[in-house]
C-alpha cells in the first residue's frame, strides 16, 4: 500500500510546523505517520453527514466579564526567561534583509 505521507509531504508539513528535521527523522516520520494515518482511516467507516462537529464539551459559550483594569505581569517578569534580550525588548535576528528595500 502506498505511503499516506511521503518524504516530500513530510518536508512540507515540517516547514509549516517550523521544525527542522534531519534526513533520518523525515524518513522515520514518513513511515510512522503513514501507519498512524492508515489507522485513522477507521473514522471513514462512520457516516457523519448529519452529525454536528463537537469542539468542546461545555454547555457554555461567550464568557463575558466586566472591563476592569488589573495589573499585568510587567516587563521585567515577562522578559525574565528570554533567551536573549536588549533592555526592555526581546532580541531576534534581523527579519527583513536590506535589499528588500524596507
Amino acid at each position, binding site marked *: 500500500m502506498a505511503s499516506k505521507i511521503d518524504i516530500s509531504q513530510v518536508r512540507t508539513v515540517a516547514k*509549516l510546523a517550523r521544525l527542522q528535521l534531519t534526513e533520518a527523522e523525515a524518513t522515520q516520520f514518513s513511515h510512522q505517520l503513514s501507519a498512524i*494515518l492508515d489507522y*485513522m482511516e*477507521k473514522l471513514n467507516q462512520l457516516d457523519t453527514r448529519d452529525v454536528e462537529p*463537537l469542539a468542546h464539551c461545555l454547555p457554555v459559550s461567550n464568557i463575558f466579564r466586566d472591563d476592569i483594569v488589573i495589573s499585568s505581569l510587567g516587563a521585567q517578569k515577562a522578559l525574565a526567561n528570554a533567551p536573549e534580550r536588549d533592555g526592555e525588548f526581546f532580541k531576534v535576528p534581523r527579519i527583513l534583509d536590506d535589499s528588500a528595500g524596507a
Partner: protein
Amino acid sequence: MAGGILNLACIALRDAIARREVTSTSATEAVFAAIDKLNPTIGAYLTLCKDAALSRAAEIDKDIAAGKARGALAGVPMAIKDNICTDFGVTSCGSKILENFHAPYNATVVEKLLAAGAVVVGKTNMDEFAMGSSTENSGLGRTVNPWDTQRVPGGSSGGSAAAVAARMAFVALGSDTGGSIRQPASFCGVVGMKPTYGRVSRYGLVAYGSSLDQIGPLARNVADAALLLGVVAGHDPKDSTSVDGELAPVADYLAEIEKPMEGLTIAIVPEFNEGASEDVRRAIAEVIEVYRKAGAKVVEITMPHFEYAIATYYVIATAEASSNLARYDGVHYGYRSKDAGDYIEVYAKSRAEGFGAEVKRRIMLGTYALSSGYYDAYYLKALRVRNLIRQDFTGAFAKADCLMMPVAPTTAFKIGEKTADPLQMYLSDIYTIAANLAGVPGISIPCGLDSGGLPIGLQILGPAFSEAKMLRIARMFESKTDYHTKAPALEGIQ
C-alpha cells in the same frame, strides 16, 4: 517513626498535625529522607524544593502551635506535576525546551494548595508536554515503577503516581488529557481522578490539548483524592472554560463519601473486557461481584463508537497541540539554538533541538490534520465522531449511574517494550481516552494484583459533574476490600 508517618494517609496526617501529635516538619523531613533513598532509583521528581518546603513546614507548625487554622491540607507534603506552573523552582514539562524555565506566576491550583496549607516537596517527572503513556518520553529523566523497577510507572503523570506509591509524597497533582492521571495511578496502585472538563481551573497548566486537558488528584485512597479535588476545584475568572457555581457548584466531596449508594446501577460493556489481559478481566469481574453483593444492579450495554476514540483523539489532541506548541519559538522563553542564522531558522532549529521525538511526531500529525486540503477529512471528521462518542456516554448514563471498565488492557509494561512503535503505545490508551473526548469524569482505584504482583486498576466513569457520586461509588468498593492498603516493597531499592 519515620516509616510510621509516611504510612499515614493524607487526611490522617493532616489531623495528626492539627492535634499536634506530629509536626509538619517531621513529616516533611521523613519525606525527604525517603526521597534521598528512593528517588535516585525511581526518578519520580525532577525538581526538589527542600529548603522552601522545610521552612514552610516550620511556619505551619508555628501557626498550629499558636492555635491558627491553616486549611484543609495544613502541613501535608505533596508533589506537583511539572507542567503546572509554580513561581518557585523550574517548570520544565519534562522538556529540554523548558529545562530552565522559571514560571513568572503560580497556576491557580497552586495558589489554592498554598492557601490550604500544603507543603510543596517538588515537581514530578512526566512524558514531555504530557505526550505519552509511560513517562519514557521525558526529555529530562527516567522514572520507574516502584512495584518493579524494570517496568514503566505509566504516564504521562508517571512521576506523580510513583511519588505517591513510593511514599515520597502524601498526595500529588497530575493532569489528564487522554488518561494521564488514571493510567499511571492504575500502574502504580494508587487512586487517580480526572475531574469533569471545567471542574478545575487550567490557568497555569501548560497547554497540550486544551479541549481535553484537566488537572486532578493522585492519592493513596479515595477520601484523600476527594479532599484534594475539593481544594483545587471551582470557577476561576482566569480560565473561562472553568465552570461557575450556577452550572455546577463544587460539592463537599467528603461529606457523604462513607454513605453507600442506594439503588446503584452500574453499566458494563461486555465486549470491552475482551481486549484486556486475563488477570485484568478476572479482577474486573470480581469487582462487579463485590458491587452486586452490595446491592448494585448491573446492566450490560453497548457503546458502538468507543472503538473510534483512539483515532479521534489522536487527530484532535495533536491538532490542538500543534497550535499550542507554536509558542515555543526560541524568542520569548525556553531554549534557543546557538547556531541559527535568520529568524525562521531560530524558530525551526530551536524546536528541532529542544523537542523530543514524540512531541515532534504529534506536532507533525496535528499540523498535517489541520493543513489545507486535509482539514475536513481529518480534523472536522474527528470532531463529528467526537460528538458520536459523547452520545454513547449520554446513552450509557441514561441507563446507569456509572460505567465500569478496566483502566488499561494490561498491568505496567516493561521499559522499552512499546517505544519502537508509537501506534502500539497509542493503542494502550483504549479505555481512558473516550472520557476526555466526552468531557466526563473518571477515577482509577486499585482493584487487585496480577499473577506477577503488579497492581490492577478499576475505572469508574460518570456523567459530567457527578464527582461526589463517583467518589462515593469508588469508596463503596474500597471499604469492602484492602487493595488500597497494598504498597510496593521498597526494601530492595537503595
